[in-house]
């Protein structure tokens, strides 16, 4: 009888584990909300007023909700992209750059190729996917082949993407006129919008479908199973006959492609052309979206809606208060920080310091008894 048996956590029943999957994010949100309120107070604003502005600005009335849905769309793609990679143990935090490159590709194919809409739209989307994939290929390849830390490479690839796309938008393919942008995409490459109030477009539907498809892939397919095992224990996966390097590369590329789709939606739906520096950081928001969703594709829908709403509500902050939309970024990354810590659920249920939960006596006792 070894000691590790007893100190290891006993598995909770299914219901509790589902509950804990929801409780952790809610606690993180609550902590972020409280800290955010303190920060707002420190800056001389009334937190209730500010939060009310955020909520009413995003959810009160159909027009506001439609704007929220519009703001949610890119976050669905980037959040999904980050979630896919993290679930497989790969930290693709380069969604920002992959989205920019995807957007550029969609923008180029959108204006330079003349095709009927039925072909043009898929072609642009495919171009964006390929662009995102190509951009993800650099960190993916370096990680899988050479073990280079993908976070650092991803973070470096983001400014490179921004500068490179900027070069296209200001020099190579710049549209005539004062704005730094590519020429407008042809009408045949436009995603149809379905509202007068906002730019919400069929890209939203594509994103939602993608979330559902990935949820099914994760839960029901061999690939989804393999990704999960790789994420938890790559050596075990490899030993068990899973082609870890190949799968990891594929997941990373898929993740990049999905991030590229965020760019397609922006160019083909929201703006109608590639604009230089169009992203306020959707790729980075995706990290928070994925963390809050606990890397579950359906969870991504909820958390993208939440952060989309905050982003959309934050527009009025600038006008009505002395704050900026960066309040949302602060809230987002408090959420990430809190979720990264293994605090919440275990603390609540065990009333223990996490160190006592994670530090099992088994390590010293079992290894030396063997």
């Amino acid at each position, binding site marked *: *009888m*070894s*000691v*590790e*048996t*007893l*100190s*290891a*956590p*006993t*598995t909770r029943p*299914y219901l509790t584990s589902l509950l804990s999957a929801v409780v952790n994010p809610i606690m993180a949100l609550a902590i972020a909300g409280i800290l955010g309120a303190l920060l707002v107070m420190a800056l001389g604003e009334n937190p209730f007023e500010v939060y009310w502005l955020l909520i009413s600005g995003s959810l009160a009335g159909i027009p506001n909700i439609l704007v929220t849905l519009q703001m949610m769309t890119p976050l669905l793609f980037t959040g999904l992209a980050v979630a896919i990679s993290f679930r497989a143990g790969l930290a693709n935090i380069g969604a920002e750059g992959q989205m920019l490159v995807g957007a550029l590709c969609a923008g180029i194919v959108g204006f330079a190729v003349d095709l009927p809409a039925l072909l043009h739209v898929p072609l642009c989307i495919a171009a964006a996917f390929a662009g995102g994939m190509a951009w993800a290929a650099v960190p993916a390849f370096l990680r899988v082949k050479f073990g280079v830390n993908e976070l650092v490479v991803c973070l470096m690839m983001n400014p490179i993407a921004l500068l490179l796309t900027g070069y296209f938008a200001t020099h190579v393919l710049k549209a005539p006129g004062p704005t730094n942008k590519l020429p407008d995409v042809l009408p045949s490459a436009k995603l149809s919008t379905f509202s007068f109030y906002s730019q919400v477009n069929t890209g939203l539907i594509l994103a939602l479908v993608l979330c559902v498809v990935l949820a099914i892939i994760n839960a*029901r*397919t*061999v*690939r*989804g*199973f*393999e990704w*999960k*095992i790789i994420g*938890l*224990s790559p*050596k*075990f*996966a*490899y*030993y*068990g*006959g*899973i*082609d870890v390097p190949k799968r990891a590369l594929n997941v990373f590329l898929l993740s990049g492609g999905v991030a590229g789709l965020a760019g397609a939606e922006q160019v083909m739906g929201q703006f109608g052309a590639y604009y230089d520096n169009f992203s306020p950081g959707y790729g980075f928001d995706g990290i928070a979206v994925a963390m809050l969703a606990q890397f579950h594709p359906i969870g991504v829908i909820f958390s993208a809606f939440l952060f989309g709403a905050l982003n959309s509500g934050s527009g009025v902050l600038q006008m009505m208060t002395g704050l900026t939309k960066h309040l949302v970024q602060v809230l987002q990354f408090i959420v990430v920080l809190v979720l990264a810590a293994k605090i919440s659920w275990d603390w609540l249920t065990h009333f223990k310091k996490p160190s006592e939960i994670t530090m099992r*006596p088994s390590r*010293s*006792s*079992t*290894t*030396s*008894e*063997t």
Partner: protein
Amino acid sequence: MASDTSKHVVEMRNIVKRFGNFTAIHNANITIGRGEIHALVGENGAGKSTLMNVLYGLLPRTEGDVLLRGKSVHFSTPNDAIAQGIGMVHQHFKLAPSFTVAENIVLGAEPTLAMGRLNMRRAETETGELSKRFGLDLDPRAMVGSLSVGLRQRVEILKTLYRKAEVLVFDEPTAVLTPQETRELFATMRQLAQSGHSIIFITHKLREVLAVSDRISVMKQGEIVATIDNKDVTAQEIASLMVGRSVLLRVAKDEAKPGGRTMLNIRNLTALGERGENAVHKLSLSVRSGEIVGLAGVQGNGQDELVECIAGLRQPAGGKIEICDKPLGATPADNRALGLAYVPADRGGVGLSLQSSIWENMTVGHLPKFKRGQFLSIGDARARADELIKRYDVRGATLDKAAGSLSGGNQQKVQIARELSREDGSLIIAEQPSQGVDIGAIESIHRILVEMRDAGKAVFVISADLDEIFSISDRILVIYRGQIVADLKASDATQEEVGRYMGGLETPIVDTGASVKEPARVC
């Protein structure tokens, strides 16, 4: 030995240690006299290390008293214990390989100059003097990474002596040593005892206990069941105190009927160890269907590298491996397809994903079977896992429980169930199958392996435990410095004979003529 309490350097009274609901130590009492070598023996999991960790301040005790030189002490960290003159020579050496001997020895008690500057010169002289005084010859400036295992252990010992330890706890010190090194260690231990140090010697090897100790305390299931003078006792008596089962029980099995087919054929295999040395050197062996071949050897003689090569987790540097007459594949997936079933020693790192559920752990490696188009038939996979849990008697398991929540023995059963339930698995490699496994489970694991043999499969068992090797093998191979030095029929071999081969004291059966490179070492 003296019974006068004041002469006892250490006295542990009524120690109880609980982890949650589990009591690891029940009411243990032990006394250690000055200048005494006191052996603490017991089976795996008897609580020897837990008790010593309580003494050393690594684990807080639940109840009881620890008296040091008659005074009650309470150590909350090893630092407190070290400061009071208690030192631990760990089984897994706690050394930094790219630092010098002197740096490793003085770490934590470094001689300094003004402004926190290191006084390396003094560290080196002091280390040198210390090593001379106790006859533990070492170059203070040598890199620890370049030392042999025996020398590294000297560094560990010197570390405790440098901190003026009077009580030294040796945790399974001989597990990684050759017989020659073991003899030197015992001489050192005696010399230390003569100079007034007290030594606690944790082991489960009875011959060693009798060879070196003054008194012997036997632990069983968290209790000290007896403390005896060495001269009053025989190995058989200690053995019967130690275990609940009869010792050295050989699994009841018929004579092997090896078939003609060679399932594992290795020719001139060379593999490099972590430091780029030839851990396996032109090694050849074969395992036929219908036999259990045991590979015996002192840890670190190339077993790990050999098995990793067969499993596809390490690239061989030369030679060839054939599984069921086909050359080894490029990945573990290929080797599985050839018929390899591998039960690794490293359950947490290789053989299981401890955070994943039991059904997931049992499904990995069988994915093709449950593949329906691109989809995974989760229903079938779970049904099979459920059946395996029952068939292999994995206690406390439910499908959705995390594998890490099982005991070591039951984790092992999950691995074994997964690997041995493969219909197409015709070569079974079991690495340390009983490591960290409770006694009841060991027997059932051995029985399963014998069943596999009787079903016509080839079974290759790698174990550091000679008892285990003798218990189940039909044929015993001995590995020494990366080569097979003996190939013996189990029924004719004696443990003494195998022990001599393990220590490199017999001439290898195959003399390759090549000079044996630096042996593989563990740190």
